């Protein structure tokens, strides 16, 4: 369980990091390393060069940027976990972060590393897709934007070019009253890889009618998906449990669920419905809680 030999570089800025990737097709970026290092230890990854971006200045931040919260690629998961900005403006992310690995891996793991790794079970990818995040990357000295919904294209596969470096993402903030969130996940052990997860954010009218809803389903399929048809049918409804179950079941009816030793496709499909229903119910309850509190 020892990594194969490699060269180690610590570039001063992103463009230098990209140039190092362009110069050697077997070079890999390393940020938190919480996935790459075990892959290297098991020799499932054998990069010839590690380009360490941990110390590049200006890649770790959480700040307001217009109507969004901007997060730097090397921002560690523990910093997101402790951020008052995230708790206030991106409550869905705050709810999901404790589910990422363990405290000791969140202390090193970065949001950008998780996004480019694109594990089907990753919570951060699910949140990015559910909240319509926009990702930024640097390639050939240019900064390029891509929607989270177009970034993930397969299990462990993204549309990021091989010589590019993710620099950050922006997550739009929902404004107004009666916004609620829900997050549910099933796994074998505490903070293990998810078999199924669901993230929901909802905004209600004064009378409890659903004004806006985003429903994301994670881990069940190759990459996180939005239940767009369910969202459309639920806007204008009271989020009645039976109706939620119907539209969520319909939205998940034709998915090609992952199937492995730990959870079969049939299980994942069935539980994905339950998780989404619970997440919608939680989101609705927390939105109503805010309303009650305000009165």
């Amino acid at each position, binding site marked *: *369980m*020892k*990594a*194969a*030999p*490699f*060269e*180690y570089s610590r570039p001063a800025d992103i463009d230098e990091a990209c140039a190092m990737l362009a110069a050697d097709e077997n070079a890999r970026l*390393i940020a938190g*390393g*919480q996935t790459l*290092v*075990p892959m*290297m*230890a*098991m020799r499932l990854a054998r990069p010839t060069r*590690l380009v*360490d971006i*941990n110390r590049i200045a200006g890649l770790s931040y959480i700040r307001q940027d217009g109507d969004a919260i901007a997060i730097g690629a090397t921002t560690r998961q*523990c910093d997101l976990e402790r951020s008052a900005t995230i708790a206030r403006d991106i409550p869905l992310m705050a709810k999901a972060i404790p589910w990422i*690995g*363990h*405290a*000791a*891996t969140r*202390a*090193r793991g970065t949001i950008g590393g998780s996004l480019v790794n694109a594990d089907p079970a990753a919570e951060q990818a699910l949140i990015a897709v559910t909240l319509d995040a926009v990702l930024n990357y640097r390639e050939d000295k240019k900064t390029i934007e891509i929607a989270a919904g177009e970034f993930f294209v397969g299990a462990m596969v993204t549309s990021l070019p091989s010589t590019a470096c993710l620099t950050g993402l922006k997550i739009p903030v929902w404004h107004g009253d009666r916004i609620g969130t829900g997050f549910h996940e099933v796994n074998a052990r*505490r*903070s293990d890889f998810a078999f199924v997860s669901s993230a929901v954010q909802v905004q209600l009218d004064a009378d409890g009618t659903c004004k806006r809803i985003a429903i994301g389903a994670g881990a069940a399929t190759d990459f996180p998906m939005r239940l767009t048809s369910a969202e459309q049918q639920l806007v204008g409804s009271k989020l009645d449990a039976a109706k939620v179950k119907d539209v969520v079941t319909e939205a998940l009816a034709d998915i090609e669920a992952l199937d492995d030793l730990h959870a079969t496709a049939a299980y994942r499909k069935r539980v994905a419905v339950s998780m989404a229903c619970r997440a919608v119910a939680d989101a609705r309850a927390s939105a109503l809680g805010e309303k009650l509190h305000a009165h």
Partner: protein
Amino acid sequence: MRINLDINGEIRELDVEPRTSLLDCLRDHVGLTGAHTGCEHGVCGACTVLFDGVAVRSCLMFAPQAEGSKITTIEGVTPGPGEMSVIQDAFCETHGMQCGYCTPAMVLVAHALLIDNPNPSRDDIVDAISGNICRCTGYAQIIDAIALAAERLRGANRPVELTK
């Protein structure tokens, strides 16, 4: 490559291959064998050290990445030679170990927890040690140990001390 690490308050200049994990560096190059080699892929938690005061897995980091950082191993938590920290004492008293393989990591995780949260609930303690596998104790005495240490440190009205 040559690297400088601040290990338990002492600056060490070392010559390592880039592929050397921080864990192997501590054990084989520095001679500190308190961080244990378990799974070497980030699952068991036996290799936990404090990295700038935060619990991390030393098998999931290459030694050159730790350049200039402050690392505390189990050898660095004792007040003096032959003495034990309040947390280590509590592990002895509650029988918070059997074979001892997971113990250094459990003690360091407890240190990291109590720095952040001097008054942890049982759930907080369970959460803090959830990334560390123990195959002997069933965890109950470990949880008791950390709760006892927390109570004593609160009673003594002094913060957790990391290194001498």
